[in-house]
């Protein structure tokens, strides 16, 4: 089966969605009361200054024309200039995305591995105290609001036990003694590449609590789904037939059952990427982590519409890319999916 028609269909879908989304955000954000030009100048601006800024930004033109111009620029990777910081949005995003993705990818990868493991274990030991315990923990994990969990972790692991730092990405003194060099933007990879071990361990140490906060929800979701999906699979005819042909129980479970149960789990992993990206908004405020969430949130609250557009389009893209890659994985895992 060829992936090309599937991928091109997805790509067209992505383009359509991005156009719809950008239009939605553009007209929405511009319909908010408030003078964009005044905000661009900031503080005490004279009317003629504001008028000049208005012309500079093309705000005196009709809204639809502005939108068309914006989309033209978008195609060349120009997302406009932030009204607040006056820096190109594209550059800001490029700088911030790796910092957030580093945390998000760790959380998703761990949640996936642990979730499938715990879910499998619970199904294998169905009805025992292990199953009950995992069921309770995973229920709790999906019931706790992310912002509360983050604060709770700070309270316990910083205030009470003192094991992990309260916030930030790296200790201040290390920023001077062993500064991070920018290679890929992923601080753990960069510090390893440049042989900066002190920074590596320090960043990893700072990352524990944010990752723990982000893990909870996807971990609970994946665990619950793996358990129920696996139990469903284990009651199928082909498992009974395999058992009747003398195949070892462990092979039945972990090779046959898990492979069959994986497809719905992968869908949820895809959905979790976007949810976790959103959860970084909260985690990054609470842990003062300089990533995309922090950046987006200040933009949301100050109505910095070019940034708002950029972030929305980026999240939309990540959402579609994550779902598409999980769909590709599902097609590899399960040949029945057309």
């Amino acid at each position, binding site marked *: 089966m060829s992936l090309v028609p599937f991928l091109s269909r997805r790509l067209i879908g992505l383009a359509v969605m991005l156009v719809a989304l950008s239009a939605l*955000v553009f007209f929405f954000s511009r319909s908010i009361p408030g003078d964009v030009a005044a905000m661009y100048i900031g503080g005490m601006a004279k009317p003629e200054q504001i008028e000049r800024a208005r012309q500079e930004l093309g705000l005196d033109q009709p809204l639809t024309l502005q939108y068309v111009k914006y989309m033209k620029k978008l195609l060349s990777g120009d997302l406009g200039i932030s009204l607040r910081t006056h820096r190109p949005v594209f550059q800001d995003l490029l700088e911030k995305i790796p910092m957030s993705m580093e945390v998000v990818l760790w959380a998703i990868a761990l949640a996936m591995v642990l979730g499938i493991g715990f879910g499998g274990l619970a199904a294998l030991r169905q009805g025992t105290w292990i199953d009950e315990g995992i069921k309770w923990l995973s229920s709790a994990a999906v019931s706790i609001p992310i*912002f*509360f969990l983050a604060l709770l972790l700070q309270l316990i692991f910083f205030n009470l036990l003192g094991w992990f730092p309260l916030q930030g990405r790296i200790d201040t003194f290390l920023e001077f003694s062993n500064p991070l060099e920018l290679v890929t933007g992923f601080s753990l990879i960069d510090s390893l590449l440049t042989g900066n071990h002190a920074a590596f361990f320090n960043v990893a140490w700072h990352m524990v609590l944010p990752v723990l906060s982000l893990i909870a929800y996807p971990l609970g979701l994946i665990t619950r789904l793996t358990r129920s999906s696996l139990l469903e699979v284990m009651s199928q005819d082909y498992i009974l037939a395999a058992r009747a042909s003398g195949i070892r129980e462990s092979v039945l479970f972990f090779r046959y059952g898990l492979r069959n149960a994986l497809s719905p789990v992968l869908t949820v992993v895809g959905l979790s990427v976007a949810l976790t990206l959103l959860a970084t908004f909260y985690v990054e405020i609470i842990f003062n982590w300089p990533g995309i969430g922090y950046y987006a949130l200040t933009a*949301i*609250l100050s109505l910095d519409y070019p940034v708002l557009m950029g972030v929305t389009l980026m999240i939309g893209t990540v959402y579609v890319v994550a779902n598409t890659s999980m769909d590709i994985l599902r097609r590899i895992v399960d040949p029945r999916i057309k």
Partner: protein
Amino acid sequence: MSDLDFKQLAEKAAADHRRHRRYLLRLVFKKRAALAAAAILSLMVLAAVFAPWIAPYPDQGKGEVNLADRLQPASFNHYLGTDVYGRDMLSRIIYGSRISIFGGLIIVVAAALIGVPLGLLAGYREGIPGAIITRVVELVLSFPAVLLAMGISIVAGAGFATAVIALIIPWWPWYTRLVQGEVISIKHMLYVEAAGMLGYGRVYILFRHLLPNILTPVIVMMLLDFGPAIISIGLLSFLGLGTQPPQADWGLMVWEGAPNILNQWWIAVVPGCAMFILVTAFNLFGDRLKEVLSIDSNQ
């Protein structure tokens, strides 16, 4: 067979049905966790309804500042301590539960009221109406719900009502999708087709045969959606995009307590725990109901 016989048969079937429903309910409560969850839920709902009579300081619950008693830990005067403005935490929690429970209820019910009829239509008329509804559903679901809600809240101006509406908008398509799938899977079953051949009208078939069959999964989904709905309201109000101060709202209370988390931890932890307990109770109850219903349909 005479009319009388049919009537007796129908009555007997109805009685069996009622008995079976009672049996299922007993089965749900056989699990102690589900019983405990139901008890907690009823207590919280009662507290929310009778807040003015139950809260020790109803005025502070509504937002009255009491600077003389700022940041006090738990005591006999204030069972859960006081917040930054000296307000009794217990009263704030009780008043805040109104927002969470009421908001969650509106979101879930409204999402079902919009989503279910559209799903029925999309499933029953698979042609153009079905295609249009499916496209809209796909478009809305292809974007993270909370982000969409954030955008809507900003544009429409922050407040409890906008937050709730902003959450209903990305929420209803889930019900449409569920119902559409169910309808398509049962509408070709013999008894439905037979009703069509007997000359019953579409509307009659829709409400008489299809609706009762999809009601159970919809109710289960509504129960299981309560928790996420409450958390989503919290997510918006934590950012100041929901209920505005001085009204009590759990998400907002956690936000107000966050700067003091290291010293006066209870200001953030108490509303956080309240939210956690309420959501867990809903999830436990919903899970158990789903479990019992799935056992039932397997038998």
